[in-house]
């Protein structure tokens, strides 16, 4: 569905060339749900804008939904849907009118566009809002409208840029329910960016991590976590001295009376570790294991935490 080779985009900022995306290779098979993860400024949106023909690449090629983004942008546009970061509906227009316009933009007759608009209003629980202006909708309702606008022509591939950012937890869950249902019902290929780690972790079959304009990891969340981060064991001791010794034994790090170590399989390693510490006369007061998060993966790869979110310019 997506095949990108050496995709690069440079911007001129005050006569200096800044490379936002640096030679990305990417292949996405049909029917997948792929999460594109990275901190702000990593090149997520720029990549998405190139794949959706909004921005011509400086170099490299991309074939999206069977057409080259540079050679045949109209062919790509006809086959993909795009839900941008901002609000898709114009403020001056009524919800249903915007859906009809969107259908006509894809070449539907006014009547077909109206029928499709009504279908989508129903599918996304927007029927009571059909004659309202977007400005009067709640954040979650607006997002559902954005998704409806992206679906009007039944695309096989839908791009979503931060679909759940800025929504309250209930609306986020609601949006996700709609996205997942879409996939189940229509087999739509979904390519979305997010900086909510747990979303990428729980929902996506494949996670692509981008940083500094380069793809630094690509795989299932499970595999990335096992290969790149490993489990964690956290114990506390009664004194700092004991913690320091325990850290040395386990090859971990001590902060105060807390010791943290990274191991391939925490559940299996913990009993052994506790026995060793016991043998050395160290009294462990608490012990717990934790599976790694995608943030641990990012930390292991870059030395920074994704949740800090601000990368130095």
């Amino acid at each position, binding site marked *: 569905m997506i095949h990108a080779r050496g995709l690069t985009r440079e911007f001129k900022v005050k006569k200096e060339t800044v490379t936002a995306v640096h030679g990305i290779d990417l292949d996405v098979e049909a029917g997948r749900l792929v999460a594109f993860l990275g901190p702000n400024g990593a090149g997520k949106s720029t990549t998405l804008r190139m794949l959706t023909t*909004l921005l011509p690449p400086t170099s490299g090629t991309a074939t999206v939904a069977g057409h080259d983004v540079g050679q045949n942008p109209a062919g790509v546009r006809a086959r993909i849907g795009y839900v941008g970061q901002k609000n898709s509906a114009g*403020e001056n227009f009524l919800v249903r009118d915007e859906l009809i316009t969107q259908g006509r933009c*894809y070449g539907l007759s006014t009547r077909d566009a109206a029928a499709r608009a009504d279908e989508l209003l129903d599918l996304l629980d927007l029927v009571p809002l059909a004659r309202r202006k977007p400005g009067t909708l709640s954040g979650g309702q607006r997002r559902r409208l954005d998704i409806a606008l992206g679906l009007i022509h039944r695309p096989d591939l839908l791009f979503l840029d931060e679909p759940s950012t800025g929504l309250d937890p209930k609306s986020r869950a609601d949006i996700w329910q709609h996205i997942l249902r879409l996939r189940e019902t229509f087999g739509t290929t979904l390519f979305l960016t997010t900086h909510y780690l747990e979303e990428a972790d729980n929902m996506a079959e494949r996670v692509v991590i981008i940083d500094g304009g380069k793809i630094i990891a690509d795989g299932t969340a499970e595999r990335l976590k096992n290969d790149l981060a490993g489990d964690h064991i956290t114990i506390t001791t009664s004194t700092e001295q004991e913690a320091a010794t325990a850290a040395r034994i386990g090859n971990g790090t001590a902060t105060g009376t807390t010791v943290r170590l990274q191991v391939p399989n925490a559940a299996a390693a913990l009993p052994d570790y506790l026995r060793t510490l016991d043998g050395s006369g160290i009294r462990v007061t608490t012990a717990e294991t934790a599976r790694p998060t995608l943030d641990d993966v990012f930390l292991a790869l870059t030395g920074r935490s994704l949740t800090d979110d601000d990368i130095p310019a």
Partner: protein
Amino acid sequence: MTTFLRDTATIFSREFRPTLREPVGLLFEMGQPLLFLFLFGSLLDGAVGSSWQWFVPGILVMMCLTGPMAAGYTLLVELIGGSMERLMVTPLNRTAMLVGRTMKEMIILLAQAVLIILLALPLGFDLHPAGVLAGLVQLVIFGVGLGSLSFVLAIKSAPGGTLFYIVSQSILFPLLLCSGVLLPLDTAPAWLRAIGYANPVTYIVDAQRALFAGHLASPSILYGTAAACAVAAAGLYLGNRAMRRGV
């Protein structure tokens, strides 16, 4: 071509629907031109021959400048929001996006032109239908070009928008004042007339006056039409290029 027409119609009807929903706005937009028309028209009566004959085309040119500027502003709002981006991802023809939007402004301009002519008729405005029709066609061509240029400005100004206000505000009035829309340039000092000659709006104003007076053989019509076509060609070229380069 057929998709171009279809897409132009799509954008036009999108833009026009809110006006249809609230047509009162049309009257408010006409407030300033009407004020200019009646204040200046009364002041200048006698000074430039029949002031209405002289002033009505000038006011139409003035509206033809402000309307497309307003269109650029609505585009800027849509660029800052996400709705323009959403439309850019559809297969919609790019030129149709520009033309459809300005066509809406032009239809409004035509409606306002008809109203102004009707108001001026009892005051002594002499109607030359063929000239007026040709004049309006010329204004539409000019307006499409101006609208596209205003869109280019909006695209260059996004996402901040400050540039748009600075440029549009600092260009609009000099263009108007140095074109002889409000006061005749005939009696102006040489340097001011020289500026007038460099201003494409001057040629359009002259052509409009000739057309509205029924002087269909006047060479100024040719110059005015050339100026309108040049502005339209430049506007559409730059507009298309700006959209291809990404917004």
